[in-house]
């Protein structure tokens, strides 16, 4: 009974909310409005911040009516963009879980209000995690200046800084990684004069010197074991080279690369000859949700950079025994991308163990600057591989991360202007079908237009990251702990 009273009262509150928009139009257009960000026909979680937007092109005013199937509505009016009241929005989404809400946009054009064709937005009953963590970095190469790692609460517009390199002058901060979206276990590299690998485990923070005599570099691309007892990293000899034509810009290539597993409790690096071969480049490791498999990308080694276009990575796996920290004897190829003249990057298993999502490109492993880069889904049960067509675009889709319930994925895409990556979120239904992706909403939709930084490595987090910057600053100025190697 109380529930119904609550729903009634909330519905009433929403229905009466108004910024007095004049939703009486002078004319009706039988076309959908051109809005930025494009939120038409997207699927959103019920706990997402309001989808503020603006009209593309010049208008003298804009109004919006959002209505659910029960007739509850919000009406908002703005001058250059729509700013939806957060409380009413969240109430409306709560009432509309599992169904659609309809957006009717009115634009004032030449002193006349024009009503556009309404479009639906699906409100999924699947919740999304607390937030995402990402790096903001200018899309430069070779040299770097200011950068930082930030967290954003998804139910609001709050962005907090986790760490910025203004605190550690001259350093590069990269490759933040969390265990199954839990920020209590975090790995982060600080490169430069100061630094090492910051490892936070349940409140204990330390800095590691990760180069060992047996590895070719410091630890690079990370992934946590679900138990939190291990991390897997690639070790890579990386080189940056430039394309002559502008649409491709830059290529980052490995002249060598291997994989290792790091034992968090024993501070030891575990090796396996099968994933440290001379005749293959191995990179982008990840653990299966049960912790018994190590997925990775492997390509036949080539002369670099001369044969860069011939380097094609397949999706492979090897068994891993977390109890003993030992590896299986066989490397399995799960998807032979080279056979279809393609290459795989960033294999990421879904937490429910059903899928692996990866990025597919024509060659190499630097998918972030490949326009053809798209997201694909491997069904681990059937072995089927399908592109996530609704989420993909004509431009780059690259780094991606799963929500803890395997229903959402966030990824970076260059679709807005081909130059800056922005975070998009898409829903995956129980049949493995992705919805049209939506751009992470911002309070002011012009936020992205004036931002000269790219979103890099968006990762879901299930709660706020609490990294004490004073501790990190102190650690970065101290001698780190040398990582041992298991003999």
């Amino acid at each position, binding site marked *: 009974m109380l529930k119904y009273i609550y729903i009634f009262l909330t519905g009433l509150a929403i229905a009466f909310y108004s910024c007095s928009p004049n939703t009486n139009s002078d004319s009706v257009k039988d076309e959908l409005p051109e809005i930025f960000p494009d939120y038409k026909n997207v699927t959103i979680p019920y706990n997402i911040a309001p989808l503020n937007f603006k009209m593309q092109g010049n208008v003298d005013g804009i109004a919006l009516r959002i209505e659910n199937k029960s007739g509850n509505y919000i009406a908002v009016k703005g001058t250059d963009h729509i700013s939806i009241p957060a409380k009413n929005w969240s109430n409306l989404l709560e009432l509309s879980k599992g169904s659609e809400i309809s957006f009717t946009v009115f634009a004032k054009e030449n002193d006349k209000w024009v009503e556009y064709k309404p479009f639906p937005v699906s409100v999924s009953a699947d919740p999304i995690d607390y937030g995402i963590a990402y790096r903001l970095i200018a899309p430069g190469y070779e040299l770097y200046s200011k950068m930082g790692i930030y967290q954003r609460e998804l139910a609001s517009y709050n962005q907090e800084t986790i760490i910025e390199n203004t605190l550690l002058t001259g350093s590069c901060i990269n490759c933040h990684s969390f265990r199954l979206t839990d920020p209590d276990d975090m790995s982060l590299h600080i490169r430069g004069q100061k630094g090492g690998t910051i490892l936070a485990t349940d409140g204990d923070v330390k800095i590691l010197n990760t180069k060992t005599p047996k590895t070719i570099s410091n630890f690079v691309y990370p992934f946590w074991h679900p138990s939190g007892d291990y991390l897997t990293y690639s070790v890579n000899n990386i080189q940056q080279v430039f394309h*002559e034509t502008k649409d491709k810009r830059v290529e980052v290539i490995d002249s060598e690369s291997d994989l290792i597993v790091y034992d968090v409790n024993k501070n030891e690096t575990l090796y396996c000859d099968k994933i440290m071969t001379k005749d293959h480049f191995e990179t982008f490791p990840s653990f299966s949700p049960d912790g018994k498999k190590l997925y990775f990308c492997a390509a036949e080694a080539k002369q670099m950079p001369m044969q860069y276009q011939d380097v094609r990575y397949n999706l492979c796996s090897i068994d891993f025994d977390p109890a003993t920290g030992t590896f299986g004897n066989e490397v399995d190829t799960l998807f032979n991308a080279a056979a279809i003249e393609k290459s795989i990057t960033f294999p990421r298993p879904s937490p429910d163990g059903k899928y692996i999502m990866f990025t597919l490109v024509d060659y190499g492993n630097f998918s972030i600057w490949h326009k053809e880069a798209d997201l694909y889904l491997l069904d681990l049960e059937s072995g089927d591989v399908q592109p996530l067509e609704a989420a993909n675009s004509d431009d780059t889709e690259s780094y991606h991360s799963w929500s803890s319930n395997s229903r959402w994925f966030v990824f970076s895409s260059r679709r807005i202007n081909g130059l800056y990556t922005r975070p998009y979120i898409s829903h995956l239904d129980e049949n493995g079908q992705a919805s049209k992706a939506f751009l992470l909403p911002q309070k002011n939709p012009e936020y992205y*237009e004036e931002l000269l930084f790219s979103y890099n490595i968006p990762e879901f987090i299930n709660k706020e990251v609490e990294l004490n910057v004073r501790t990190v600053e102190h650690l970065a100025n101290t001698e780190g702990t040398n990582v041992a190697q298991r003999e």
Partner: protein
Amino acid sequence: MVNRGMIKSRKIGIAVALLWGIICFLFFQFFYPYHLFHREQMQLFLFEPGYLFSYFNKPAWLASLLGDFLTQFFYYIGGGAVTITLTLLVLIATGFWSLKKLFSGLPAFTIILLIASWEALRNTGVVYPLSATVALIGGFAIAGIGLSLKLKQTPRVFVNLLLLLIGYWIFGYGAWVALLLLLTGEFKNHFKIISVVYFAVLILPFLLRPHYLVPLRDAFQYPMNLFWNTPDLHEEEIFAMSIESDRGNWDEVLKTARKYDQNDQNATYYYNLASSHLNQLPENLLDYYQPGEYGLFLKLSYRSSFLSILFSNQAWFWVGDLTMSEHSTVLGQIFSYNQRSSRMVKRMAEINLIAGEEKAADKYLTMLEHTLCYRKWAQNRRPENQSEAFKKWIIRKRLNCSSVDTLRANNDVVASLRNLLDHNPTNKAARDYLLCFQLLSKNIDGFVADYNAYAKPLGTAPCELYTQALLISLARNNAGPKEYLAYKLDKSLVDDFWKYTELYKKRDSKSLGEEFKSSYWFYYHFATIKVGEG
């Protein structure tokens, strides 16, 4: 009598301050204008709520906001000198007002005049923000307000502490000026122990530093970044070339380079760039200091100076390598003050307009439309507003851009230029840059190969510089008359070459220097190539 004396003193004070202001204006207007243009180009002030709110993320938000707002006016001719002078006069007025509450007129006036002179000198620093001057003004204003309070000591101390706390929040290091003056005031008013409460403001940088994410030193001195500076007229000359090149005044760039004749890699870079724009690169090349090939393309590395990084996009843009030009521009952008540079954003807009990447160009044009100074520039470059001349410029630039893709390292200049010439053999800028690059790096075989590939097919006689280099190659290879004839060499230069060779064999360096100092032969034998890091 006293009043008349005070009025007279005040008039003298105002006259001295105005005279000081005139000297300041004249210096910045006539001896230092390009520094000020440059400072404006290193920021991008947007009239956008999101951008304006971002000032709250760092200390001294009000000083930074006002300082950056005022810096915009450096864009206009005379605007920089006027803005700095007026700001410093405000500093004198505010400072005098507050100091007068502690000292008598003459000492107060002398102190503030010295401070203003010190501040004027600091403003000659290329990275010194005007917001630091505003912070000082704010500090004096807070001190003046605090010293004017007619309250009993205990409430006064706490009100002043509140003023100091607010002062740090809005004026950053200006608060320390206020602290000093308020403490001096307390000492003059029979210091009591309660006044140590003022020192509580010193905790603020420690407390707010994790929020602002700045090192402790920055937390205390924000937005100020240098304590002392003196004018750098050498740098002013470099900025003169840089700014005039940005305005397309290539004659002026060449004239400035020749006038000052600096042994500086950046000066050579602009000399060569201007020569190329004026179609005189090989003709002018050896008339100027050449630090090897580094005067043609500025090297990008961790050891490069910011100015070299900033300038480096221009040569790439000129020859048509948009990838490298964009790469350099982005680096110039991210190393500029607050990672926003109006000049770099303009260049990014141009690069993307030429590349046909309309959405990316739109981003930069939209940003520029939100500025005071570049709104019109951006609007005129919108596809719907472009003039015929601009459309033709885009077409010309597009002709030079390669459509054939290969990979290369960033410092592989030769690969880039060859690729551009393979795509468009009529790209004279790229051809001259390639041939001159080979010559300056003393790669005669590379030069001949490239000359044969990209210049010889044109069928024209080589210019003097190229003839001299070809003669070295022909002599080294004991070429026959037929090979000499194939290059259509100027006979008088051939004679000169034999004369040079004779002198060289005799080790007659005096005659060589006198007669052939500007020849490639002399460069080839005697120039020492320096590793340029800018």
